[in-house]
């Protein structure tokens, strides 16, 4: 053991904990791929659902969107794309915005935007589905 380490009572493992990626550094990489895989069938289903809405009035559209299977698919679709697009936009911001405060501000706005859009969409579906 080096002299530096001998001064501390804490173990080397305890000293490095919380100071960087310890098998968690690939979290966003993994979630981007996980949601990408989920997005494929969900996008196909969502496109079919949206085509079904064409040429129908509000009552018919509301009935389709509010039916349980459609509502569940749309909720899954929105949840998956929300996670995917939040990570994707954060990567774009980190690539092009190098000013630290501007970068952090945009990353915060990114999360706010995604949460608002996802929650608003989910609210619309749930309102239709529960028929309130």
């Amino acid at each position, binding site marked *: 053991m080096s002299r530096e380490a001998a001064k501390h009572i804490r173990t080397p493992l305890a000293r490095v904990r919380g100071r960087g990626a310890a098998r968690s550094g690939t979290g966003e990489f993994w979630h981007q791929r996980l949601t990408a895989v989920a997005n494929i069938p969900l996008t196909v289903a969502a*496109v079919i659902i*949206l085509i079904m809405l064409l040429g129908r009035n509000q*009552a018919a559209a509301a009935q389709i969107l509010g039916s349980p299977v459609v509502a569940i698919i749309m909720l899954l679709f*929105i949840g998956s794309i929300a996670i995917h*697009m939040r990570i994707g936009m954060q990567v*774009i911001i980190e690539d092009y915005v190098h000013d630290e405060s501007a970068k952090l501000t945009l990353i915060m706005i990114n999360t706010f935007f995604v949460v608002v859009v996802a929650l*608003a969409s989910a609210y619309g579906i749930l309102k239709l589905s529960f028929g309130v």
Partner: protein
Amino acid sequence: MAETRAPAERPLSPHLQIYRPMLTMMMSIVHRITGFGLYFGTLLLAWLLIAAASGPAPYARFEWFAGSIIGRIILFGYTWALIHHMLGGIRHLIWDTGRGFGPSEREWLAAANLIGSIAITVVLWIVGLLAMGGPR
């Protein structure tokens, strides 16, 4: 005190303008641009769902926008961006398995990405217009 001479103005590393545009490179750029566009396009999805949940008048406003010339151009672009980004994503997932990096394979994948996205978009719009009872 000796004057320090300003270093010659050279690019630090080669960037986009150095390279000849290639299909694989263009598809990579388009993948990011379509993702960026789709991000803001989710506002339209939220609008549709909130309008459908709000009643006939708000839904009619959404329909009016979606049926207008500008609305249709945006929705056509959105359809293409969605399909292109999805096919591009499948291409990335193939790459994640370590396949598809060969010189002919990557060119073929890039071309399939572009041609496939245009073809599927056109087919979806034909189906959509038929579902609405022909072009109006």
